[in-house]
């Protein structure tokens, strides 16, 4: 059950939650591009710091920190690989510059993780589905997405029930070597799949009964409208992109290296 807890979105309200998901997504992409433009650590640290106000405004520090901790292992791995390759190709020697370079690569990864996690922590699947619907994507995709999100907790509960039922009949899940353990899950997977298929049939029946496919152009109860905050974010995004591209094109060589100070 706990595995699926992270997929459950908790409803909360903040200026960041209320932003238009499309604009938020464009912003994340802008941060993404900016992070790829630089390999030096200083601009990447600045990009990282820019994310912090969003986190605190959205009051998702706790979850955000958790996702950061989850990424720590991968970040460490990236750092180690970078250090090792530099070490290897530079004839078994390591300079301060190499360490900074490796740190920069790691920081770039962290910036990407951070911006995406803020996006997913503050955008309800509801909102995301709506954004998909209203960005001229075929409705079927948006529907598949929201339905999938809708049924995650339902199927998780069902998996738990089946697990309990099979355990009650003497199935031991944590027994044997790894291959045996994987095999142990077959008596859980099969009923789960069968019931999911049955569920999907019932779902199709209910959809048909509610006029699915009646008209070519569906309407929508909600309309995504841009508010003040969205325009502010558009401003920030544009400013960020222009600045980073300008710096990259004309001031790239002036970016100070921390290792030069030592």
């Amino acid at each position: 059950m706990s595995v699926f807890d992270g997929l459950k979105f908790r409803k909360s309200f903040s200026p960041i939650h209320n932003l238009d998901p499309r604009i938020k997504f464009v912003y994340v992409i802008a941060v993404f591009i900016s992070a790829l433009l630089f390999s030096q650590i200083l601009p990447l640290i600045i990009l990282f710091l820019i994310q912090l106000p969003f986190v605190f405004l959205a009051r998702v520090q706790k979850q955000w920190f958790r996702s950061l901790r989850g990424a720590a292992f991968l970040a460490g791995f990236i750092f180690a690989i970078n250090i090792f390759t530099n070490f290897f190709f530079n004839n078994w020697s390591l300079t301060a510059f190499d360490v900074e370079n490796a740190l920069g690569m790691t920081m770039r990864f962290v910036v990407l993780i951070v911006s995406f996690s803020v996006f997913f922590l503050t955008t309800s699947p509801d909102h995301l589905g709506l954004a998909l619907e209203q960005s001229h994507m075929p409705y079927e995709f948006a529907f598949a997405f929201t339905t999938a999100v809708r049924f995650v907790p339902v199927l998780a509960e069902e998996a738990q029930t089946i697990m309990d039922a099979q355990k009650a009949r003497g199935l031991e899940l944590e027994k044997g070597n790894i291959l045996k353990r994987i095999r142990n899950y077959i008596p859980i997977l099969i009923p789960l799949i069968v019931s999911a298929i049955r569920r999907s049939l019932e779902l199709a029946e209910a959809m048909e009964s509610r006029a699915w496919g009646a008209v070519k152009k569906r309407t929508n109860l909600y309309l995504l409208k841009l508010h003040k905050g969205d325009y502010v974010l558009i401003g920030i995004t544009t400013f960020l992109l222009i600045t980073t591209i300008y710096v990259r094109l004309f001031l790239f060589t002036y970016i100070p290296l921390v290792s030069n100070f030592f």
Partner: protein
Amino acid sequence: MSVIKINDLVYTYPGASKPSIDGVSLTIEKGEFVLITGPSGCGKTSLCRTFNGLVPHFYKGDLSGQIIVADQDIMGEQTFDMAKHVGLVFQNPENQLFALSVEKDVAFGLENLGISREEMRKRVDWALNLTGIYDLRERSPHEISGGQQQRVTIAAVLAMQPKIIVLDEPTSFLDPLSAERIFEVIYKLNQEQGITVILVEHRLDLTAKYTNHLVVMDKGKICFEGNPRNILCNDEISQIGVGIPKATLLYKKLKADGFDISEQTPLSSDEFANQLLKVLANDYS
């Protein structure tokens, strides 16, 4: 004026050897509250599916006979066209809700029909208020109880403003109290909005009092049809697995022992209690 007219309906599911519906003829009048009951596998659900054309359009299979619903021959209509006239509510509320909020789910059918946003908003709020779940409109279907979920599905078909609402054992996943609340909502819709209601239900204890058109099915056929007061005191009915209300059973027993409490067969405990009180008051005076 009849809203549903079925003539000599025989229907076999693809791959089945026996027909699920075997020679059914049924007429339902506008504004009626019809109760269909019978043991499991008697063809009630299949019959419900014919009302909006799920049988035979969605399930395929062999069908003969004629089904006219809201002046349309269902053979010539798609299910999504029939959805405007007939709303179907199924057993498991969980599998009828697709959206991530109650409100959005109620709007689902209207969105499919391409109704304008202002009109949709009006109808959604109306349906939510009528079923008493307006306060839940922004909750996710996973967060609310089974009874509330089933009310959402009722609101969802209601928003499409059908002439007929068909409920196929809507309370089989619910506890008796939530079930009773659902029945009251349905009865209110029938009385106040004049919507024709067709309810498939085992719990006659709770529902017999609402209807004067009871249909008892067994093995794909209709074996009894008419006023529940006449049908439920029939001796043959106890042979088919039908849950006769306990008050009716007690009344029959007392009558067999020579205690004639009232001319009218009671259908609910409350009704029987009142009859008893009346008799007792007469005896004391």
